[in-house]
């Protein structure tokens, strides 16, 4: 009998939900990034004909050139302005309506059906209509960002609010809190980290709407620059803008994660 012992030995690395040391995790993350980077280098080295993939070095040159010429700053400012305004409006509406929906069954009943219907209309399909109605200024772009995210934000905030334990609300009433106090002092603070998470998750949809708006009708912006670059076959600029998009996305994700933990240390896992 060569039995080593009872049970099946578990792999320290490949076990499901294994607790890897931080250094291992960091190492694997660097490895993953390096893999993507090498793939890029390899593709660019063998690119030819119509499929031109600029090298990382060329892309970096395009980024720095766009930056020093002031073009990148201007495009970045234009895009950030649109998404900043549109997404702020969307979150504000989502927060108020979601809070009411999650708290009052009456409002939920009235709002849920229309929101559920509107949510399934792809907001991008509204672009021609918005251009027709609102012209080609800033308002159709901001409106598209709002329309493309507000329903998701509303429904997800409502879910977060519904997750406030019933006992917490009941106990608040027995402590003398009125409805307004329960909303302000119990439901809102309990929902805060969840709401920030909703903002973080749906921000990606906000970027998507921004890009669609800028591709179709704009005179500035990061996505507009990509369309422009296409005209002159400036693949390096296209890549530069894509990289900028990625960096902004990662940065906003990190900022919102940090904000969540700073605003609600009690909810930290």
């Amino acid at each position, binding site marked *: 009998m060569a039995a080593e012992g009872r049970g099946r030995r578990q792999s320290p690395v490949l076990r499901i939900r294994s607790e890897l040391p931080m250094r291992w995790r960091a190492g694997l993350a660097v490895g993953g990034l390096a893999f993507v980077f090498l793939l890029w280098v390899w593709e660019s080295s063998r690119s030819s004909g119509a499929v031109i993939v600029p090298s990382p070095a060329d892309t970096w040159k395009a980024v720095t050139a766009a930056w020093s010429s002031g073009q990148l700053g201007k495009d970045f400012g234009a895009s950030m302005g649109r998404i900043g305004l549109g997404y702020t409006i969307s979150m504000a509406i989502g927060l108020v309506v979601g809070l009411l929906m999650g708290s009052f069954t009456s409002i939920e009943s009235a709002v849920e059906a229309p929101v559920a219907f509107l949510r399934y209309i792809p907001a991008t399909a509204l672009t021609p209509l918005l251009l027709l109605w609102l012209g080609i200024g800033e308002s159709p772009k901001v409106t598209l960002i709002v329309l493309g995210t507000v329903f998701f934000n509303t429904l997800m905030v409502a879910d977060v609010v519904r997750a406030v334990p019933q006992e917490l609300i009941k106990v608040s009433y027995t402590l003398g*809190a009125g409805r307004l106090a329960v909303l302000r002092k119990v439901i809102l603070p309990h929902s805060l980290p969840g709401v920030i998470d909703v903002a973080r998750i749906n921000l990606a949809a906000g970027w998507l709407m921004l890009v669609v708006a800028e591709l179709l009708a704009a005179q500035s912006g990061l996505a507009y620059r990509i369309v422009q670059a296409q005209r002159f076959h400036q693949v390096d600029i296209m890549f530069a803008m894509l990289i900028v998009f990625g960096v902004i996305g990662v940065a906003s994700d990190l900022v919102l994660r940090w904000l969540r933990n700073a605003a609600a*240390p*009690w909810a930290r896992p």
Partner: protein
Amino acid sequence: MTLSPPESPPELAEPITPEPPATPAGTRKLDMVRVIKTFPARRKAKPVVAVGPVDIHVDQGELVCIVGTSGCGKSTLLNIAGGLETATMGDVSVDGEPVIGPGPDRGMVFQGYSLYPWKTVAENISFGLECQGVDRARRAERVKELLAIMDLVAFADRLPKELSGGMRQRVAIARALAPEPDILLLDEPFGSLDAQTKLAMQEFLLLVWQRTGATILMVTHDVEEALFLSQRVYVMHGRPGRVVEVVDVPFGRSRSTQVKRSPKFLDLRDEIQELFRQPLD
């Protein structure tokens, strides 16, 4: 079967510490008369009669328990007393005034998950006072007092997630006591605690009750807990739940865990448990 009142004082019912003077007792605090609760029909199901008719009362300074099997409507009754649910029929009053909704005069404690997780222990305790617009200095004073009573002084600035289960329930009790309620309503407050912690909390509750002179109505499914803590036990059973027996507990206001080994205690326990073996309806 007659469980109450006992003819002769039981042998081991000697109080361990001298009996404190009786509270200005006798005045009725909570009075629930012929209370019935029916939950409305859902889908094709008929309306559910959850409880009743039930008569329950708690006098000034009493500690009374409702004990019963799961689903017999204990929580429903307590919620009605707290004003969180309305009785379908019957009268519910506190100090002679009808209960029409929840209020800080009836503090409630639930089984768990009811502390504000973003507030520190002190802030949790302070919440009720804040809602009533008590000024900051007076609030701090009251919180300090309760932290001392609840043996939580060292944990004033901790968050609930940093506390043990027993401590959390102590905070919940302190928070309910802060606005000086007329009556404290406890719904299985020790139900999720381990056996040792539970025992310690029971002794602790007795101590708090003696020190503060609070009037307490507590729901539990633990017969021993009910007998150990209370002066009167309402035994509920059946569907819809009814009070099948009222037990006057003959052990005095202050008791030690030794009471749990006395023959009288064991007899009462067995008799109540026998009641639960009766078929429902």
